[in-house]
C-alpha cells in the first residue's frame, strides 16, 4: 500500500497523453481568459485556441512512429491515434477559424465556446488513443457532453435548444446501450482493456459463441455507430446538424464522427478481430442502409444545411464500407477518407457560415440562387467542395472513395462497391442541385451581407488546398494512413 504512489508513477507515461494534456491545459487556461475578458470580446480567445491547436499538433506529430503506451495500458499514442488526432485538430482548427465572425453575427460571442471545442477535441483524442474501454468511454463522454453544450449553444434559439436536447437524449440513450455492451464484454472477458479482451478470446476461442460476448460486442459497436451516424442510429443527425450552430455542425460532422470511427476501428479490429465475419456481415448491411438512407433522403431536402447533414450520413456509409473490407487498404482508406471528409465537409459548411444571414433562414436552395455570380470566390469554393463530396477527380473526395471501394473490391465485396458507387451516383443529384442554384439560376439577392472574413477565408483556402492536394497527390498521406493502420 505504501508504494502506491510509486506504482502510479511507474504507470504514468505523460508522453502517451501529451497532446490531450496540452489541449486540456490550454482549454482550462482559455476558460480563465474568457472569464476575465470583457464580455463580447472573444477574438483573442479564438486566436489563442488556434495557438493551442498548433502547439498540440506539433506535440502530436512529434510522436510519429514512436508509439507511447501509458497509464497501465489504458492509453497509447500510436500512429493510428496520431493520425486521427491530426484529423481532430484540423477539424477543430478549421472550425475555430470560421466561428468567431459567426458567433458575433448570431449574437453569442461567448469565450467558453473555444475551450469547449478544445475539450471536445481532447475527448476525441482519448477516444482515438484509448486502449481501455473506460478511457474510450470517458473520452466519448467528454466529447459528447461538450457537443451537447455546443449544439445547444444558442440558448435563445429554440432550434439550437432542440438540437442540443435531441442530441443529449439520444446520446445518453445510446450510452446506455454502449455501457450495457461494455458490461457484458467485461463479464465475458473479465477486463475492459481491448488487448485483454482480444487475448482472452484467443485463449478461449469458444467464447465467440457465447451470446454475451456477441451481444456485448454488438451493443458496444452500436454505441459507436450512433456517434458515427449509421442507420438505424442516424436519426438524430439531421435534426441536430440542422439546429446546431453551423460551425458546430461542421465540427460535429467531421471530428466526432472520425473519433467514433477511430474507437470503433480499434475496438473492432484489435479487440473483436475474432468475430470479424459477423462484424463484416453486419456492417455490410448497415453500410448499405446508411448510404441509401443518407443519399435518398438528401434528395428531397431544400435546406442546404440539412441536406449536408444527410450527406454526412451517406459519407458515414462510405466509411463503413472500409470496415467491411477489413483489410489494410480498407482501414487506411477510412483514415484517409475521414481526413478528406474533414476538409471537404467543413469547407462546405464554412461557405454556408459566410453565406448565411442572421438566423440562417436563407440557407435554402432558393436562397442560394445566383450565389456563384455574386460571390465568385465562395461559389468556386463551394463547387470544389461539392465536387469533392460527389467524389469526382481530381478532388480528394475521389481518391478517398476510390481507396475505400478498392478495399472493398480487394476483399471481394464487389456488390458492396457497386451499391456504393450507385449511391454516389444518386448523391450527384442533390450536390449538383446546389450548383444548379448557385450558377444556373439568376441571382435574386445581392448577397451584400456576405463579408469575406479573413479567418473564414483562410479556413476555406486551407480546405481547398487540402481537398485538391489530397486529390492530386494522395500518395504521401495515404502512405501515412497505411503506417497508421494496425
Amino acid at each position, binding site marked *: 500500500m505504501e508504494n502506491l504512489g510509486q506504482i502510479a508513477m511507474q504507470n504514468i507515461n505523460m508522453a502517451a497523453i501529451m497532446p490531450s494534456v496540452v489541449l486540456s491545459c490550454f482549454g482550462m487556461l482559455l476558460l480563465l481568459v474568457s472569464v476575465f475578458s470583457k464580455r463580447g470580446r472573444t477574438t483573442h480567445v479564438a486566436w489563442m485556441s488556434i495557438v493551442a491547436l498548433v502547439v498540440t499538433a506539433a506535440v502530436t506529430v512529434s510522436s510519429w512512429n514512436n508509439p507511447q503506451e501509458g497509464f497501465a495500458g489504458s492509453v497509447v499514442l500510436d500512429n493510428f491515434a496520431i493520425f486521427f488526432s491530426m484529423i481532430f485538430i484540423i477539424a477543430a482548427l478549421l472550425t475555430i477559424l470560421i466561428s468567431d465572425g459567426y458567433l458575433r453575427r448570431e449574437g453569442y460571442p461567448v469565450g467558453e465556446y473555444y475551450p469547449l471545442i478544445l475539450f471536445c477535441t481532447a475527448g476525441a483524442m482519448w477516444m482515438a488513443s484509448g486502449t481501455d474501454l473506460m478511457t474510450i468511454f470517458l473520452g466519448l463522454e467528454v466529447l459528447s457532453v461538450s457537443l451537447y453544450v455546443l449544439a445547444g449553444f444558442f440558448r435563445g434559439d429554440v432550434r439550437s435548444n432542440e438540437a442540443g436536447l435531441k442530441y443529449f437524449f439520444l446520446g445518453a440513450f445510446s450510452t446506455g446501450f454502449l455501457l450495457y455492451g461494455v458490461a457484458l464484454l467485461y463479464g465475458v472477458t473479465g477486463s475492459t482493456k481491448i488487448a485483454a479482451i482480444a487475448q482472452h478470446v484467443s485463449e478461449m476461442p469458444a467464447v465467440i459463441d457465447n451470446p454475451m460476448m456477441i451481444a456485448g460486442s454488438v451493443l458496444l459497436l452500436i454505441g459507436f455507430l450512433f456517434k458515427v451516424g449509421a442507420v438505424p442510429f442516424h436519426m438524430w443527425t439531421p435534426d441536430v446538424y440542422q439546429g446546431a450552430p453551423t460551425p458546430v455542425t461542421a465540427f460535429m460532422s467531421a471530428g466526432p464522427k472520425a473519433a467514433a470511427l477511430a474507437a470503433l476501428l480499434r475496438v473492432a479490429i484489435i479487440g473483436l478481430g475474432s468475430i470479424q465475419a459477423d462484424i463484416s456481415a453486419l456492417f455490410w448491411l448497415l453500410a448499405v442502409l446508411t448510404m441509401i438512407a443518407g443519399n435518398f433522403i438528401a434528395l428531397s431536402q431544400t435546406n442546404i444545411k440539412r441536406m449536408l447533414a444527410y450527406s454526412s450520413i451517406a459519407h458515414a456509409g462510405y466509411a463503413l464500407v472500409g470496415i467491411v473490407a477489413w483489410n489494410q487498404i480498407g482501414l487506411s482508406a477510412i483514415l484517409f477518407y475521414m481526413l478528406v471528409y474533414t476538409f471537404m465537409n467543413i469547407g462546405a459548411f464554412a461557405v454556408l457560415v459566410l453565406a448565411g444571414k442572421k438566423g440562417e433562414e436563407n440557407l435554402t436552395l432558393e436562397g442560394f440562387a445566383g450565389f456563384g455570380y455574386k460571390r465568385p470566390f465562395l461559389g468556386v469554393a463551394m463547387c470544389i467542395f461539392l465536387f469533392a463530396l460527389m467524389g469526382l477527380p481530381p478532388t480528394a473526395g475521389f481518391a478517398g472513395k476510390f481507396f475505400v471501394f478498392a478495399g472493398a473490391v480487394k476483399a471481394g465485396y464487389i456488390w458492396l462497391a457497386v451499391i456504393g*458507387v450507385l449511391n454516389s451516383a444518386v448523391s450527384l443529384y442533390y450536390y*449538383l442541385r446546389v450548383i444548379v442554384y448557385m450558377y444556373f439560376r439568376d441571382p435574386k439577392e445581392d448577397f451584400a451581407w456576405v463579408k469575406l472574413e479573413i479567418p473564414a477565408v483562410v479556413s476555406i483556402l486551407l480546405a481547398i488546398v487540402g481537398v485538391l492536394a489530397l486529390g492530386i497527390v494522395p*500518395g504521401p498521406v495515404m502512405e501515412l494512413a497505411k503506417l497508421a493502420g494496425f
Partner: protein
Amino acid sequence: MADYLLSLITFFPLMGMMILLFIPRDNEGLLKSFALGVTLVTFLISLPLAFDDVFAVSGGMQYREFHEWISIGSFFKMNYNIGIDGISLWLVMLTTFIMPIATLSTWKAVDKNVKGFMALLLLLETAMLGAFVSLDLFLFYIFWELMLIPMYFMIGIWGGKNRIYAAVKFFIFTAVGSLLMLVAIIYIYYYAASTGAPMEGFGVQEFYRLGIPSAAQHWLFLAFAFSFAIKVPMFPLHTWLPDAHTEAPTAGSVILAAILLKMGTYGYVRFAIPLFPEALQTYLPLLAFLSVFGIIYGSLVAMMQDDVKKLVAYSSVAHLGFVMLGIFALNMQGMAGGIIQMINHGVSTGALFLIVGFIYERRHTRQISEFGGLAHKMPIFATIFLIITFSSIGLPGTNGFVGEFLALVGAFESELRWYAVVATTGVIFAAVYMLWMFQRVMFGKVTNPENEKLKDLSVREIVIMLPLLLFVFWIGIYPNTFLSKMNPAIEQLLNQVKSKQVAVVEPVQPVIAQTLELK
C-alpha cells in the same frame, strides 16, 4: 523536348487557364483572344505528332512518358503513364484541331461570364487530351471524370431554356456509367496483382496481356461497355444526348459532338475490346444489334425533328452507330473505318453544330419552320452548309463516305454481315433527314419576314469553317494520310484481341447467312 511533348500538349491548356484567371473579367476581347491563342498554340505544338512517320511503321505506343505518381506500398501504384499510338494520335489531333475552332465560334455567342467560359474551355481541353493519351486506367478515369465538370457548367450556365435539366441529365447519365467502370477498374487491378503478373500500376498495356477469367470478364466488360455506351451514346442510353446538344451553347455542342462522344468509342477501342476479348465475343451480337438499331433509330427520329440542333443530335446517334459497327467488326477495315468515322463525325457534326450556331446567333431560334429560303440571303452559308450536309450524308469524295464505307466493308467481312446490311439502309435515311432539313431551311422562298435581313457569313465565320471543309475533302479524297498511320496500331490491337480469343465460338447466325457462307 520531345520527351515531354505529350505532357506539354496535354497541360498547355491548363497552364493557359491558370494564366487566364489573372486576366480581368471585363476585358472580354483579351480573354477570348487569349483562349484562342492558347488553343492555337496547343494545336501547333501537337502538329509534329501528325507528321511523325513512326506511326506508319510501328503500332506500339510512342512518346511514352512514365513517372511514378501515386505509390502506396503494397496497395496501389498509379503512374503518370501516357503515350499515343496511331489510333489515339488522330483523336489527339482532332481535339487540338477542334478546340481553336470551338473557341473562335464563341466570339459572338458567349456574352456573359466570358472568363468562366474560356477557363472551362481550356480545362476541358486538358481533360480530353489527358483521356486520350492516358495509358494508365486510373489516370484515364481521372481525366474521364474531369471532363464532366466543365461540360456540365457549359451546358448549365450558357445553355438554352431547358439547360438545367439537360446539364444534370448529362452529368448523371455519364457519371453512373463511369462509376461502375471504376469498380471494374479496381477489380482488374487486384486481379492483376493477385496473379503476380508484372504490372506497372494500372498500365493498360500490362492488363492487355492478362488472361482475366471468362466469368469475371463478363461483368467487367459489361461495366466498361455500359460506361462507354452511355458516352457514345448507344441506343437506348442516348437520351441525354439530344437534350445536352440542344441546350448547350454552340461551342459546347461542337466539343460534345466532336470530341466528347469519341471518348466512348475510343474507350471501346482502347479498353473494353482488348481487355475483355472473350466477353466481347458473347456480347458482340448484342452490341452490334444496338449499334445498328441506333443507326436506324437515330435516323428515323432525326427525320421527325423540328429543331435543327436536335436533328443533328439524333443524327449523331446514327453516325456513331456506324462507328460502333465498324469497331465491332474487329478487322482492319472496320476498325479503321470506325476511327476515321470518329474523326469524320468530329469534323462534320462539329461543323453542323457551328452552322446551326451561326443561324441561331442571327435569329435566336432553331425551329426549322422558322426558316426557309435562306439560300437566297446567305449564298456562302448555303454552299458550306450544303457541303457539310453531304459530308454528313456520306457522299463519296467527302469524309463521311470513307468512314461509313470502311466500317461497312469491315462489317461485311466479319460475322456481322447481316447487321451491316441493315446498317447500310442508314445511308438512305441519312439522305432523307438531312436533305429534308436542308430543303426546309435553305430552299423555297423567304416566307418569314425576319429572315429578310439575314447577313451572310462574316469573315470570322468563314475562317472557322474553312479548316473543317479542308478536312471534309482531305479525308474524303486522300484518307491514306490517316489510314497509313493508324494501320500498324490497329493491326497490333487486333492481334492482341485475336490472340486472346482462343476458343472462337461462332455467334449464331441466321439460317440464310449460313446458306450464303461459301463452301
